[in-house]
């Protein structure tokens, strides 16, 4: 990854960076390791002041054109990826990825219960690359995609996300049910300067080697519609284009 900068931080380190061009911390006032990481990344000088390299990132975090976030439900816990997209740069805050690999079992994913890590990676990049980073983090990439929509009991799916041993419901493809499963919610909000904030959301069920599904949660059954990676990518881009002022107050991204 050839980001403009990347550094592992805690919330304290992020606060240090945010304050650096107004009320900089001295090294002896803060966690020295976090301070040294920001200096090492070329974002702060030795007196705790923001360097020019940090300015576009600070602007993006304070007055983003749009905010993009992914809340992933993995087993019994969650992970949150977010990006503040500015005019000149985007800033991504990313914990370790939740993407399902070929060696990860359904049982491992369902039983996953590690609390969110204290540290995350702050990455500064061109605005458009934040969309690519989001796809990489969420595992939106080449895969086989089952073609037919289906419905299943919402409560059963919720149980299955935390327990791979839940029996396959009638009418559901056993191969799909046996795949590692996780769910994520992608939201796109206009930036802080927007007077009429709009919000676009997309709830997705990832069923490993059987594809991605746009998920509409209703009771007692939920409907899942095939959502190929190519379409997810375009939906994100379309929502970002619609994020500027005047967009709808709240909507789900239209699938299909």
């Amino acid at each position, binding site marked *: 990854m*050839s980001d403009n900068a990347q550094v592992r931080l805690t919330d304290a380190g992020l606060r240090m960076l945010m304050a650096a061009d107004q009320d900089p911390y001295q090294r002896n006032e803060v966690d020295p390791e976090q301070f040294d990481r920001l200096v090492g990344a070329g974002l702060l000088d030795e007196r705790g002041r923001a360097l020019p390299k940090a300015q576009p990132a600070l602007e993006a975090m304070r007055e983003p054109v749009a905010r993009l976030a992914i809340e992933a439900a993995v087993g019994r816990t969650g992970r949150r990826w977010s990006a503040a997209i500015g005019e000149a740069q985007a800033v991504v805050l990313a914990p370790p990825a939740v993407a399902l690999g070929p060696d990860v079992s359904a049982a491992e994913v369902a039983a996953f219960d590690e609390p969110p890590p204290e540290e995350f990676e702050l990455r500064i990049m*061109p605005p458009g*690359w934040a*969309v*690519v980073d989001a796809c990489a983090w969420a595992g*939106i*990439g*080449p895969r086989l995609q089952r073609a037919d929509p289906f419905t299943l009991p919402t409560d059963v799916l919720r149980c299955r996300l935390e327990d791979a041993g839940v029996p396959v419901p009638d009418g559901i493809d056993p191969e799909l049910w046996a795949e590692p499963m996780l769910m994520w919610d992608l939201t796109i909000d206009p930036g802080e300067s927007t007077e009429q904030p709009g919000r676009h959301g997309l709830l997705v069920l990832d069923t490993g080697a059987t594809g991605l599904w746009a998920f509409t949660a209703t009771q007692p059954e939920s409907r899942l519609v095939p959502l190929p990676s*190519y379409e997810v990518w375009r939906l994100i881009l379309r929502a970002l284009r619609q994020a500027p002022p005047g967009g709808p107050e709240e909507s789900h991204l239209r699938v299909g």
Partner: protein
Amino acid sequence: MGAIDVKTVEDWQAASPWQIYHDQETGASLPVPPGWEGLLYPEVRIALRQPGSGPGFRPNVTLTVERPPKELSELPDYSQALLQAMALTLTDLTVISIDQYERWGVEGRRVLSAYRSGIYALALEQYWFLKDDLVTSMSGTCAVEQHDELAETFEYIVAGTGLASRLPDE
């Protein structure tokens, strides 16, 4: 850019309001988006670029023709080799999707990826088709932020792309 309901690419091209660029040496042809300009690139049979004078990346489309070596004469093998080569030459290449894509009865692939080029984050939408041991590839490149708008243009271009029937020296 409405859909054109015809049975051959020749009929498609005849019905399209866009100009068609023909590469006489290979037999390949490509619809030209209104106002786009032609460019000369080495090893590229056709290159088109969206006009513009402001800052920012200008979208472009290229068409290439090659005869793959025997060990890559099947589409899956060719695709894998091409993606491996792209990963070596394009910075931070990230493949978003690989889909089967058939046009005019010829099997092909559509590959969407992204990479970094200097200050730009670029989307690369490629289509390649294998017919008579020749691969005809159409590649559309634009800034990531532009891709959703341009994807329909790229798809329209590939819908009207005539595949190559020979290499220039044949």
